[in-house]
C-alpha cells in the first residue's frame, strides 16, 4: 500500500530505538540475575576457598607488578603536571594534597579496575568462553557440579578481595611517584609534600575510594564472566570467533561500565 510507506519510514527510527533499548534492558536484567546467582553460590558451594585462593593468585598476586608500574608512572605524571600548574601561582606546597586526592579519589580505583579488566577480566571471558564452546560447562553440569559455583563465584570472591588491595597499592606507589617527580626531580619540599598528603586526605576520601574499588570488582568480574558464559548465544560469531568477540565485548563493556559507575558513585559519595 502506498500510504503505509511514509508511515513506515517515519516509524523506523523509533522501532529501531525501541529494539535497542529492549535489548539493553534485557541484557542488563540477565546480568543482574547472573550476579545474583554468583553471590548465592558464594555461600552455598563447598570448597570455594581453595578455588578462591587459586583465583586470588591469578587475579591478585600476578597483577602486583603491573599495578605497581602503572601506579608509579601515573603518580609521577600527576606530580609533574600539577607541579607545573601550581608553580604558576607559586603554590607548589599543595602538590602533596593534589596528588593524594586525585589518586585516592579517582585515579587509583579507576585505573586499577581498567588495568585489571585487561589483565584478569579478559582472561576470565576467554577461559569460560572456551569451556563453553568445548562442552566443558555441559560436562560440569552433568557431573552435578554447578558451573556458577565452580567457575564464577570463586572469581567474584577473589576480585572482591584483590581489587581494594591492589587499589591501595596503586595509591601508595602513586603518592611515592608524585614525590619522585615533584620533590626529588623538581625540587619541591619533601616535608611539606608529606604533610599535605596527610592533612588533605580525610577518612571519607579513603573509604570512598575503597567503595569504588569494590563496586568495580563486581562490575568487571560479572561483566567478563557473563560474556564468556553465554558465548554460545552470540550472533556475531561462533566457535573461536565467538570467544574473541566475547572477550572484546567484555573488555569494552567493563571499561565503559567502570567509568559510568564511577561518575554515579562520585556524585553520590562526594556530595
Amino acid at each position, binding site marked *: 500500500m502506498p500510504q503505509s510507506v511514509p508511515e513506515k519510514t517515519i516509524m523506523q527510527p523509533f522501532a529501531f530505538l525501541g529494539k535497542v533499548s529492549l535489548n539493553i534492558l534485557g541484557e542488563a536484567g540477565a546480568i543482574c540475575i547472573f550476579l545474583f546467582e554468583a553471590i548465592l553460590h558464594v555461600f552455598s558451594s*563447598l*570448597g570455594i576457598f581453595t578455588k578462591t585462593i587459586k583465583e586470588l593468585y591469578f587475579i591478585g598476586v600476578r597483577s602486583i607488578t603491573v599495578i605497581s608500574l602503572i601506579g608509579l608512572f601515573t603518580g609521577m605524571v600527576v606530580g609533574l603536571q600539577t607541579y607545573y600548574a601550581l608553580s604558576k601561582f607559586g603554590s607548589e606546597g599543595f602538590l602533596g594534597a593534589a596528588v593524594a586526592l586525585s589518586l585516592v579519589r579517582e585515579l587509583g580505583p579507576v585505573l586499577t579496575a581498567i588495568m585489571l579488566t585487561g589483565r584478569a577480566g579478559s582472561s576470565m571471558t576467554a*577461559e569460560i568462553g*572456551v*569451556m563453553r564452546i*568445548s*562442552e*566443558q560447562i*555441559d*560436562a*560440569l*553440569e*552433568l*557431573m*552435578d*557440579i554447578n558451573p556458577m559455583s565452580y567457575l564464577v563465584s570463586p572469581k567474584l570472591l577473589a576480585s572482591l578481595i584483590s581489587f581494594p588491595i591492589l587499589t591501595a597499592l596503586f595509591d601508595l606507589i602513586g603518592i611515592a611517584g608524585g614525590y619522585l617527580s615533584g620533590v626529588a626531580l623538581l625540587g619541591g619540599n619533601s616535608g611539606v609534600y608529606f604533610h599535605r598528603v596527610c592533612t588533605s586526605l580525610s577518612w571519607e576520601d579513603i573509604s570512598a575510594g575503597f567503595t569504588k574499588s569494590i563496586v568495580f570488582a563486581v562490575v568487571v568480574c560479572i561483566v567478563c564472566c557473563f560474556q564468556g558464559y553465554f558465548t554460545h548465544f552470540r550472533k556475531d560469531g561462533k566457535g573461536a570467533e565467538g570467544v574473541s568477540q566475547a572477550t572484546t565485548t567484555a573488555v569494552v563493556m567493563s571499561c565503559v561500565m567502570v567509568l559510568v559507575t564511577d561518575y554515579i558513585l562520585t556524585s553520590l559519595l562526594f556530595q
Partner: protein
Amino acid sequence: MTSSAPDIRIENLTIGYGGKPIIEDINATLPGGGVSVILGGSGCGKSTLLKNILKLNPAMGGSVYLGKHNIFTLKKKAFSCLKQRIGVLFQDGALLGALNLFDNVALPLREHTKLKPAEIAEVVKAKLSLVGLEKFVDYFPNELSGGMRKRAGLARAMVMDPDILFCDEPTSGLDPINSAELDELLLELKKRFEMTIVVVSHDLASMQAIADYVLVLGKGKTLFNGSKESLMATDDVYLRQFLDRKGEKRESSRITMPHLDPSVMRMDCNKLLGDLDNN
C-alpha cells in the same frame, strides 16, 4: 532383564535446535541393565538426542523417564541427585582443560563424596587403569591423543559407579584392538554392576558385539527400534544399506566436474616441480 537398573523411556520426544525439529516423535524404551545402541548416519541427531535426554538442550515436545522419574518435570534437587547417578562420555571427551588427567577424573569424587584424598587416589588409579591410562595421570587433556581423551572421558564417566552410563561414540577414533577392549569393558560393566548403558555409535562391529537393544535414527524419524536380532533380519532397504555398508545405488558416476586445470593455479608449480611422477 529382571534387575533394579532403571529403564529409559522416551515418549513422543521431538528434538531440534532453535524451533527447527531434527527428529520428530521418538518413542522407545531402552531396557534397564542392558546395552542400548543408538545408530544413525552422521549428523542425523544422535548427539542431540543424548543432550535432550540429559536436559542439556530443551526438548521441543514429549517426555523422558529415567526409571519412574520424568526428567522434564523433576524438581531441581532431585535432578541433581539423579545426575550423580549418571555417567556421561561426550563425543570429544569434554575433559576440563585446566586440570590434569588425575584431577579430571577425581573431580566428581571430590565434589560429591566424603572420601579422603588417599581413597580418591586409589579409585582414580583403578578407573584409569581400566581404560589403560594409568601412566598418564599428570598429562593435561591437550597433551593426549583423541582416542586417549575419549578413554579418559570414559574413566571420568565411570568414576562414581553410575547406574546409567551414556557414551557418545566411545569407539570412534580408536584402533580395532582398543575398540574391542572397550566393548568388552562395557559388557563387563553391564554384567558386574547391572548398569544401564546407552551407546551412540555408527560402528557396526561394536554394535554387533554389545547391543541388546537398537534404536536406529535417520531421515528425521525413528527408523527402527527393537532387539539386535530383529534388526539383523530386517529387509527395509535403507536399513539393509546401513547394515551391509553399501552406498546409495547410482546410474552414473558421481564425479561430473572436469579435472582442475593446472593453468588456473596462482603459482606456476609445474616450472618448479615438473610433473609429479617417478622420473
